[in-house]
């Protein structure tokens, strides 16, 4: 246990800080869930790529910097310190990129990774179906082999970024007689392929960055299949592991929120209730705990360890922390909480953040599913019973 940065790490931090201070937009971007905001965020991805800060943990050959996980954490700390925007490329950086590196052919790596790193191609994920949310094995959209193509028919829903993105990835049933986890294949597809219809989903906040995707005999070349026919479940589980695991939510994000919450509290100190006060102090503590834990896991992985079902602990912790911090902010704002913009014209980011935080315990595997995983795989409780 050695909790000091090396001089090289400090130097790296200074380099990130300088670049971020020079480049992070001074004004907050419009939300990425609408076309205008999406375009602004893609522009930011390209700015990041121009400084080679797009995919910092990727190998240099694919457009990354080959940073280790401690460097990645430092990068993220500085990113959130500077108030960097949300990442339009989130699905690419943390989900699809690592999946392709692990399962892709050389040709696939070449075709997909570099454009992703440059922010030229933005990816949507297409996991869920109307009948398959947390229960992903219930997938029924099918891909039928026809020569050197798959012909895809079916429906995906709740696809993040899909309203505006370029390409998508998901799993499809290639063996029509198969059930549950078998007979599924992981396929990448151009969202502009004929036969694909995108229907934007209007979300709770009114924006439409998510979409339903309808596939009507969509022909996708066989070479867009990842890791072989029938391997879809294993690949998806690995991908979902990345998502729930270390990199989906870096601690800097929550530490930045906790700091803003402290500032909000100071502005309302005179009239705030005791529980609000203690919630604010505990928010700092919990965000720090999440950071320590992430450093511990990063250290473990760098030492050759693996992250397994512990990822579910992380997902429960950060999603409930995020919701609780934003709920506390809403209560501190009182009668101002409902305003989309405050009297001074400023966007009420706490309201936006609270709404977004409500999705945390739902997506990437609901927290009910995560608690089952913790109970069964980490604690060893029996899986008997439907309950």
């Amino acid at each position: 246990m050695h909790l000091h940065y090396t001089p090289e790490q400090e130097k790296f931090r200074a380099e990130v800080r300088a670049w971020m201070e020079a480049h992070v937009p001074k004004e907050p971007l419009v939300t990425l869930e609408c076309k205008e905001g999406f375009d602004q965020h893609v522009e930011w991805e390209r700015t990041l790529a121009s400084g080679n800060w797009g995919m910092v943990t990727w190998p240099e050959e694919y457009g990354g910097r080959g940073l280790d996980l401690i460097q990645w954490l430092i990068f993220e700390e500085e990113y959130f310190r500077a108030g960097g925007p949300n990442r339009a490329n989130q699905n690419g950086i943390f989900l699809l990129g690592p999946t392709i590196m692990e399962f892709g052919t050389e040709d696939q790596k070449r075709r997909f990774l570099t454009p992703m790193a440059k922010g030229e191609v933005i990816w949507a994920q297409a996991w869920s179906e109307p009948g398959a949310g947390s229960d992903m094995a219930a997938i029924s959209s099918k891909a039928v082999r026809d020569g050197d193509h798959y012909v895809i028919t079916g429906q995906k829903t709740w696809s993040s970024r899909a309203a505006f993105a370029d390409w998508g990835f998901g799993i499809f049933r290639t063996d029509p007689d198969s059930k549950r986890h078998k007979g599924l294949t992981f396929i990448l597809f151009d969202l502009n392929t004929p036969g694909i219809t995108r229907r934007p989903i209007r979300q709770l906040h009114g924006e439409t960055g998510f979409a339903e995707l309808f596939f009507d005999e969509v022909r996708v070349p066989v070479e867009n299949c990842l890791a072989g026919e029938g391997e879809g479940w294993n690949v998806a589980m690995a991908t979902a592991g990345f998502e729930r695991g270390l990199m989906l939510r870096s601690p800097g994000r929550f530490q930045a929120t906790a700091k803003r919450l402290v500032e909000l509290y100071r502005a309302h100190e005179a009239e705030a209730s005791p529980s609000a006060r203690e919630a604010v102090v505990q928010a700092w503590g919990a965000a720090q705990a999440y950071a320590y834990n992430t450093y511990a896991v990063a250290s473990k992985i760098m030492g050759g360890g693996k992250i397994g079902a512990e990822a579910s602990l992380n997902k429960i912790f950060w999603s409930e922390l995020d919701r609780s911090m934003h709920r506390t902010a809403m209560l501190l704002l009182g009668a101002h909480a409902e305003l989309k913009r405050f009297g001074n014209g400023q966007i009420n980011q706490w309201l936006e953040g609270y709404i977004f935080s409500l999705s945390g315990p739902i997506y990437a595997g609901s927290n009910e599913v995560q608690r089952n995983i913790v109970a069964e795989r980490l604690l060893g409780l029996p899986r008997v019973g439907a309950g």
Partner: protein
Amino acid sequence: MDFRFSEDQLVLVESVRDYFSGTHGPEVLRRLDVDGNRDPAIWQALVDMGLTGLCVPEAHGGLGMGLVEAALIAAECGRVCLAEPLVDTAFVAVPWLIAKGETDKLSAIASGDHKVALPHVLNPWVADGEGKPQTSVDPLRNLAMFPASGSNDDRLLNLGALMNAAQLLGLADAMLEQAVEYAKIRTQFGQPVGAFQGIKHQLASCAVAVEFAKPVVWRAAAAMQDGLETAPVHVSHAKIAASDAAMLTAETAIQVHGAMGYTYEVDLHFWMKRSWALVGGWGDRSYHYKRLDAAVLGGSIPIGPEHTFA
């Protein structure tokens, strides 16, 4: 000592609930959201039921009822997420005007021709009032900038807070019901999600919170009605209990709905947004907490088993 509603009160509530359930479903909220969020026909129906004049004395053309009846109807307004400014006009402004002896507008209110939006210094906005528009997260709320001439009258605040608490009960009831109905039909892992204890127990906890907030709100309404000196304490207690129950139920209901709850096409969001708005208005949680704190720890209300109705 009788902690029941009268037959008349129950009949009143039932008739209003029946009317709303037949005419004021979620599709009405969607229509208002698209077409402009106030509808003279809905307002007229409220007038026709006598609700605008519920608390107006009979001499001024009203029904002459009290705050308990008003709170009961406010809960029904919450239950259907009513957008029209009935509660502020008829259950907040009317009792306040009567208490101040200002009776000249009462008959116009009872007849539905006059709506009142009272500004209070604790609110940074006026709901359905005049002024520069402010956008609420709730698409069915029309807010205007707080005017310089806001009141700081405690009775007005208490009326507003009590009626927000009552509306929050109805909102929480409705969100719980929506979550239950969804949990019955949404199937995952081979059974309705509502058959899993993980979902059942969360919803049961909401039911506990909501059911134990209700008598606190009714007790506060009765205390205001009876003019108890301790009424402000009971109003603050009610506002906190109803707010906490509604916040918990909103978070649980969206969780039970899963990703669908995060969409605009599922009805839940209207109720959640209204809840967030009402929790903050007419004295926020911290404000009412401080009043409760001053009463309980400061000793301004007698406590102990023999003081249940202090």
